[in-house]
């Protein structure tokens, strides 16, 4: 079981500032929880994601699969001339365009849910549930062998930068 130190904040500007200060002090900020997306926090925490590449791959596969479906149904399996148009026709583009977007988005969302182990009816796993309301939380990992000096430094930095509460939590959440 791992434990975390939580700095609870009231204002998003304080959070951005606090992350800078903590990192200047050589403390690793593990995560930040916020009721809404914070612009620029992603870069500060040096987070990376492969999700856009997954979207690109789904889109590519989806586009090719859609073309294959259209080609098979209207050229190979049931070739029906209408309006004097060629069988392998330009109007495929609309359906390919729309289905590429649909497949790309739906599978990206599914991938996100699977990676985050989310499903309907799942119990909340959050260090502090108030982050879905009006609080911002900075999470710092607390190893078991942490010494007092380090702990005091973290807590004083959190207080200095405007944390309204400093808590500890042992909730294991999916990062």
């Amino acid at each position, binding site marked *: 079981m791992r434990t975390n130190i939580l700095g609870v904040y009231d204002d998003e500007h304080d959070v*951005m500032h606090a992350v800078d200060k903590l990192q200047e002090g050589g403390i690793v900020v593990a995560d930040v929880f916020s009721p809404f997306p914070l612009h*620029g926090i992603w870069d500060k925490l040096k987070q990376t994601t492969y999700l856009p590449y997954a979207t*690109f791959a789904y889109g590519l596969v989806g586009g090719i699969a859609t073309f294959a479906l259209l080609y098979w149904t209207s050229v190979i399996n049931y070739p029906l001339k209408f309006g004097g*148009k060629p069988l392998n026709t*330009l*109007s495929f*583009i*609309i359906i390919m365009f729309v289905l590429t977007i649909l497949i790309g988005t739906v599978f990206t969302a599914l991938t996100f849910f699977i990676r985050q182990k989310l499903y309907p009816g799942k119990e909340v796993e959050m260090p502090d549930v108030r982050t879905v309301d009006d609080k911002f939380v900075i999470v710092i990992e607390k190893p078991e062998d942490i010494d007092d000096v380090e702990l005091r430094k973290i807590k004083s930095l959190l207080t200095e930068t405007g944390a309204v509460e400093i808590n500890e939590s042992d909730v294991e959440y999916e990062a």
Partner: protein
Amino acid sequence: MDKKVQLSGKFKIAMIVLIVVGLISVAIGFLTEDGERAWANLLLNNYYFLSIALGATFWLAIQAVTQSGWSIAYIRVPQAMSNYFIVSMLLFAVMFLGVHDLYHWSHADAVAADPILQHKSPYLNIPFFTIRYVVFFALWILLSLRIKKLSLQEDKIGGISFFNKIEMTSKIFIFVFAVSFSLFSIDWLMSLDAHWYSTIYVVKKFIMAFFHGASVITAIVIILYKLGYFPMLTKKHLHDFSRYIWALSLIWGYMWLSQYLLIWYANIPEETIYYIPREMGEFKSLFYTELIMNWTFPFFFLMWNRIAKSANWLLFTVAVLIIGQWVELYMSIMPGTLDSYGIGIIEIGTFIGSLGLFALVVGTSLSKMPIIPQNHPYLIESTTEEH
């Protein structure tokens, strides 16, 4: 912070040389062939740079209306580009001498013999055409001058009132621009093929102006950055600029397809006649070039994150798009006016001359005002990293 762009004497001389080259090639055009080709080229280049200046001003208005913070440090660039309207108005005034060479509907005897042109004559006639030209240019010049004046006053005085006034003027400009530029495109470009019409035509031209206006703003910002005028330019700013180009290239491609696909699918002779010379006739070599340069290339190229944030690659993309817009306008104008396809000294020379004039006007305007607005409420948001 109140730095102004210093124009070197070399730059001015180089641009004047370009303008002279342009004038010579126009003269060659008038002397060696019948006037049509030279007029068509003048129309192309006048419309080209007007649409870039208009697109840039639209971009500026969008920044004000959406209350964007990131772009505020760069708003002087589109403001300087909007100074080109006055020059453009004079250039289009010269175009009236060539109206009879270019526009089939301007001949009274042709209209008398043609029921379709008779039907359109309440709109397409020289007096109304002239009135529209005057009204549109007057509106563009007045609104853009007002935005610029308010912005320069804000530099001196500061305060929130100018911010609100600029936003209000920008809202008016957006409505005016949407209506006036659509009708302007019908007047000067679509009426070249007076029998043909497409309702998506003006939407595509609208997007083209916005798309290439945003691209040219990006290019000017990057060039000024390389000359040391925008020290605060970050990867994030470049990414925001390239997002504009990327998204607009997608909309542009969508409009291209919307027009082409509907005409192809309906297959009505009156409509398909427009695409016959373009896709199957003499101009077919440029038909797909237009699409590839303006949509396929930027769409797939700027998709890569590293390229989208690199100043040099963005400059390269914009260079391709500048040629791409020329090709688009060439495909809009030339098949309707000229019988034969050809790109020679007249085409290249006229473009170079107009480019020189545009660069000279924008450069001179940039040298007359502080390159970074000084009292804008969002300036700090724009110039520090957290934007």
